[in-house]
């Protein structure tokens, strides 16, 4: 295997049904329902998905949800802000754990 991630693998996603069609059906019905317009619009949901895709650093999802965000009416500005939100939470999550570091530090030092 020369690389783990290949673009041509993305359309094979539905092959995950092989082995457990019932679970796949439940997953895909739920997945489809999640992205339908509700209290949040389809565009807002696509942008959240794009941000999460960056947080979990999934190349498949980044590709898919960049396309999806565009086709749900988002533009580069909105997508870039979504990536900043993901990055801020990732960075913030590291930073806020500094509190743990400080707790340990104050316990151990005079």
């Amino acid at each position: 295997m020369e690389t783990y991630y290949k673009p041509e693998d993305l359309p094979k996603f539905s092959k995950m049904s092989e082995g457990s069609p019932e679970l796949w059906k439940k997953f895909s019905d739920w997945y489809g329902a999640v992205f339908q317009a509700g209290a949040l619009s389809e565009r807002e949901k696509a942008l959240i998905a794009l941000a999460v895709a960056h947080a979990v650093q999934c190349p498949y999802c980044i590709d898919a949800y960049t396309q999806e965000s565009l086709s749900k009416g988002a533009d580069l500005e909105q997508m870039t802000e979504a990536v900043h939100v993901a990055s801020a939470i990732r960075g913030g999550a590291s930073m806020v754990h500094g509190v743990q570091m400080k707790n340990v530090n104050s316990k151990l030092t005079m």
Partner: protein
Amino acid sequence: MEVRHKSMKAFGESLANANEQLKIINNESNLPHFDEKYELVGEGELHASNIEIMQVNVGKMCNQVCKHCHVDAGPDRKEIMTKETMQICIDILKQTDIPTVDLTGGAPELNPNFKWFVDEIKKLDRHVIVRSNLTILKESGFQDLPKFMANHKCEIVSSLPFYKKTFTDKQRGDGVFDKSISAIKNLNELGFGKEGSGLILNFVYNPVGAFLPPSQEGLENDYKRELFNTHGVVFNNLYTITNMPISRFLDYLVQSGNYESYMQKLVDSFNPSAATNVMCKFTISVGWDGQLFDCDFNQMLEMNMDHGAPDHIKDFDMKKIENRRIVTAQHCYGCTAGAGSSCGGATA
């Protein structure tokens, strides 16, 4: 992609030629032919029914040179409908009860007989749609047109590919968004787009790239909110339109390496309920020189009405036009993908 200042035709580019475009779109051997796919609709071959709209392309000249333009319009295009050809259209309207005339181009306002034509159509009490690019209404010599269109109760349909400057100017040229907003303000002042005024102003969204349009309703809400909050302007409806893989958009698809995946996307998104309402079923399209087509896209591909229907308005015969078989090619997938696409927006 560079901003264009002239049409592809002016530069002698090969895709300015309809045959070269057809060679590309009909040569995709691993995609099913549109006619085969259309059979899924369950109505047999694609045929027209009652004619509700006469769409007249009054010329290919335009003050803009948008990157995606399916007409390959621009300031250099000289094809303009004559008054004589317009008169034949009027005569046809007199003989028939076609309720709506949809004027397109290029910028239809650039035809020197635009006002005369609208006047004559209105005398016959038909509804007139003007596909105005908005910026032309700010050019000197054209600033009286909003008033003229208000007096004649024309419905205005205008491209505004996004509610922000970036995407709009990318597709339509630098400064187009600001100029469009200024024209919309003038139109709003006259009542266009305002509820209860009876003056309709609709916008058209089309994707600024190789992707399909979002849901019409959701995007209309975004447009209404953003355009009102940011610019204080209002409009009636938003139509979402899919970019057809022809002319300058085809050129973009090929140059950007998106052609194959875009066609695949259109085919994969084929929607039978969008396909039952394709606009060629109730539209006839008249070219600047009087030739007849099933739609404006076929017009640009030089695919005239056929299968026993006349190919020029001088031979107009409603009996042969209603129920005619439509001339199709692979670009037709652009009308049937997702929620569908027509000059009046989504069809499903």
